Structure formats: structure tokens, C-alpha cells
């Protein structure tokens, strides 16, 4: 059965800290790994990773995929209170289906 596991489940940091969120996956017919940020409503797309070792960056966020070890990390540097959210990782099975992890709940305190 396809499975995506995220760690930690929750995390509290101070503004300015750097955080690393982890995602491991076991997904048949794996095509890509996606990261989403969910605040109060809809998950919003952050990154799609398809190749190992190529870092994707967007401002203070970056992510990388290791297809040999079947994991991905999401880094957030110089965290701000607006980064507080649930971060979801999902594996694309290639069958029009994303398998999500349970998410990491990040709280950035002032």
C-alpha cells in the first residue's frame, strides 16, 4: 500500500530559526513528490520535485528529493510567524492520485 510519512508531526520554533521538515515515501509508480502549505483553508502548492539532488527554491523555502533513499526535505530559513501552517507532503502515484502524509504542524512564535 502506498504510504507517505512526515516528521516531526508538530514543531514549535522562534522567529528567525531554521526548520527542516521530513517526508519519506513508498509509492508505486512514483512520478513526483509535492509539498503543500495549508493554513486555514485550501492547501496551496509549494514545490513539485521529480529529480534527485536538484534543489528547488522559493524565497526562504527550499526542497530537495532523494529518489534512492525515498525521501524529501523542506527547509525554511529565517522563519516568520506567517510560516505557521501545516505542511503536507504528497507522492504522485502516476495514476491521477496523490497520496498525502499526515502533515507537519509548524508554529512560529514571535
Amino acid at each position, binding site marked *: 500500500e502506498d504510504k507517505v510519512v512526515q516528521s516531526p508531526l508538530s514543531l514549535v520554533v522562534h522567529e528567525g530559526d531554521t526548520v527542516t521538515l521530513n517526508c519519506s515515501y513508498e509509492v508505486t509508480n512514483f512520478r513526483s513528490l509535492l509539498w*503543500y502549505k495549508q493554513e486555514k483553508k*485550501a492547501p496551496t*502548492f509549494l514545490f513539485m520535485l521529480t529529480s534527485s539532488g536538484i534543489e528547488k527554491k522559493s524565497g526562504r523555502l527550499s526542497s530537495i528529493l532523494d529518489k534512492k533513499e525515498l525521501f524529501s526535505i523542506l527547509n525554511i530559513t529565517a522563519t516568520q510567524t506567517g510560516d505557521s501552517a501545516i505542511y503536507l507532503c504528497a507522492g504522485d502515484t502516476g495514476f*491521477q*492520485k496523490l*497520496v*498525502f502524509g*499526515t502533515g507537519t*504542524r509548524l508554529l512560529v512564535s514571535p
Partner: protein
Amino acid sequence: DTAVSQTPKYLVTQMGNDKSIKCEQNLGHDTMYWYKQDSKKFLKIMFSYNNKELIINETVPNRFSPKSPDKAHLNLHINSLELGDSAVYFCASSQLGQANGNTIYFGEGSWLTVV
């Protein structure tokens, strides 16, 4: 303009009732989905439709019946609602056949509470 819009946003109803949630996307995508997010925030696919055809049905009880009148709309009808149906239901869409996989765009969710 909201890319994926769903209505209603909030719904409180009694056990045994039948209710529908509507979804529309204006992204020109060919595939639409329903996802369910439970109280623990676990997001799981229920259905997907590609060009109005059912592609995925993830062992969802047959009280749940999706309907896609055209590729821009995917509605979800739920019969005989149960307490365990309380959740947030997210509609989503994507365009298959993209070179680099399947980026799904989500609606804002419909909060269903069954009492």
C-alpha cells in the same frame, strides 16, 4: 477569480439527511477530484474524474455519489449522512499529461458537520 470554487463552505445537517456539495474550476483542467480531510488533518482522495469519466473510486461508501456534468464541474452528493462523514471536503483539479507530473489545485473546502 477563484480557480477552484466549491459551495457551500459550511454545512451543518442532521444524521440521515442527504446533501450535495458543488465544485467548479475555471482553470481549463481536464481532471477533477474530491478529497476528504478528517479531524486529524489527514487528506485522502475519494474520487477523480478525467473528462467527465470516473477514474478513481477509493473504496468510498456508495452513499457518496459524484457527478460530473462537464469537465469544469464535479459535484458530490451524500445520502443518509452519518456522524463519521463530518470532515472537510476539498475539491481539486489538475491537467494531466503535463511533462512534470500532476500539480493539483485545491478549492477552499466545504466544512461538513453532521449532528
